[in-house]
């Protein structure tokens, strides 16, 4: 079983592809982190403003919702590269390594396929939100913008999972994120 919410292990790169994937995954994670820092700042201004009688930031709840969605999705590729999506390995502990590698590869392929489907459907949802000019209630933020910003995270997640599947199927390759 993986280590939920512990301290993540270091990603080790073995070849140039991994170099770029890790850099992209980390860059997205950091941008998500910075977005959260901005959201925290907004929340603080909101509370202090309300307490002092200036009122909270207009639409703070909408912005927090949209921001969380974008930032949390930006975290997905990094987590995928680490191979840290939760799975149960209790029943397969004594399984032969080669067989385990094969089913892990299939699992990564499934992850890639589903991430790709989600990215595709989210693109459609973005387009329809833009056509219908749907906006949030208070600050009139067009909904298609945060929806569209989810797509890069999902696409990169699909690519990362696909790469991990490829590396898992190649006996000579090391899988990024596998612990030493």
């Amino acid at each position, binding site marked *: 079983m993986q280590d939920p*919410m*512990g301290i*993540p292990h270091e990603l080790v790169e073995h070849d140039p592809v991994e170099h770029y994937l890790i850099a992209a995954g980390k860059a997205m994670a950091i941008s998500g982190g910075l977005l959260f820092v901005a959201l925290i700042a907004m929340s603080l201004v909101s509370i202090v403003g309300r307490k002092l009688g200036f009122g909270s930031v207009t639409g703070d709840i909408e912005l*927090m919702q949209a921001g969380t969605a974008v930032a*949390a999705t930006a975290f997905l590729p990094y987590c995928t590269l680490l191979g*840290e999506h939760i799975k149960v390995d209790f029943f397969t502990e004594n399984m032969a390594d080669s067989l385990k590698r094969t089913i892990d590869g299939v*699992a990564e392929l499934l992850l890639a396929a589903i991430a790709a*489907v989600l990215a595709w459907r989210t693109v459609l949802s973005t387009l329809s939100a833009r056509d219908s000019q749907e906006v949030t209630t208070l600050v009139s933020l067009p909904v298609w913008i*945060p929806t569209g910003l989810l797509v890069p995270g999902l696409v990169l997640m699909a690519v990362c999972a696909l790469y991990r599947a490829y590396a898992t199927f190649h006996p000579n390759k090391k899988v990024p994120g596998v612990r030493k």
Partner: protein
Amino acid sequence: MSGTTIGLVGFACLLGMLAIRVHIAMAMFITGAGIYLVMNHGETSGLLYTLNNLVYARVSNYDLAVIPLFILMGQFATHGGLSKALFKAAGTLIGHWRGGLAMASTAACAAFGAICGSSLATAATMGQVALPELQERGYSGKLSTATLAASGTLGILIPPSVPLVIYAVLTQESIGKLFVAAVVPGIIAALGYLLVIAVIVRRDPEAGPAGERVPFADMVKAQINIIPVLLVFLLVIVGIYGGWANPTEAASIGAAACGLIAAISGGMRGKDFLQSVYGTAHATGMIFMVLIGADLLNSSLALSQMPTELATWVQQSGLPALLVLFSILVIYILLGCVMDSLAMILLTIPIFYPMIMGLDFFGMPVEDKSVWFGILALMVVEIGLVHPPVGMNLYVINKLAKSVPMKDTAWGVMPFLASDFVRITALVFIPGLCLGLVHWLG
């Protein structure tokens, strides 16, 4: 085929996929999609339409924003060296008692748990600080590792607590109420562990030799150092329950305050900040992916009406309510042998919650029952972290204390587990333990 049958077959497939190492999020997603397709007689348009908005609708949730914020807060606490200050404060206070330093570890874990929502992070950070010192003072390896593995669970039992947020989101329960309800049981858990240590060192004084008393001035200084940490906890809990900040805002305050403390007194620098962000990305990515899968699964189960049908069946079967409850708790303990607590909550609450809500327990009103079951579920799923074979806390601590064999740690936690069982039984029969504070404040 009736909806209930489809739901049950789907659930069986889900468990099968989990057993062969499919990611939990993916297994939930595939099962959910499968149930959708079968319910709609192979028509794909309904499923595709649901998928359009699945990700955005699920992750743009104001209550769920609490999770990454609390995780970030815990990461700051972890990387900012706050654990050291807490351990020192508790150590100077009671370290001269027999077994005192082990008790100090428990107390420090409890305090750390009040600003961190993760058991593993609590066990790992406190372990790094406390284990070397326990070893130096001649504490037995078994007592040291078992104390830390068990006390690590206080990270989750004492709010803020990520599984409780997920329970709240799944059941439309108030996060603030659940956090307040968890306070007293969390303190009882800490006291129970202290008692266990006291009994162990009484029977075997060699296990935890008494240390020397620390000069009074040093003791006071160590206590002053941790005041900011206590303030953060009070700010978060009082803020939420006092009604001047909602949980998301309180979590923002907590994260900002912890970040500040970590930067000023803990020496957090750019590198540590990045590590905190990576840690948050790692945990949040993992949790949100499972949430997305669980969302599709739960809406498909709702479509099949399996949970309501099952709940009605249990209600009409005339089974004693307490028997149903204990069966559910036993299922949690068994599931805890193979999967982690978040997955358990997401997988089972949609099915167990309607069952419990349909039964009568001591004539409790519905809103009390919902909070009470949440706290019970939290406590039982957390036991999975310390009992063999896959208790993650055992592994985390074992990695830190290489000289202590795993077998010793596993045996060492048994008395702590016994105190867990006593506490859970007490909470089943005395719901006031968690509801008292809620009623008093509400």
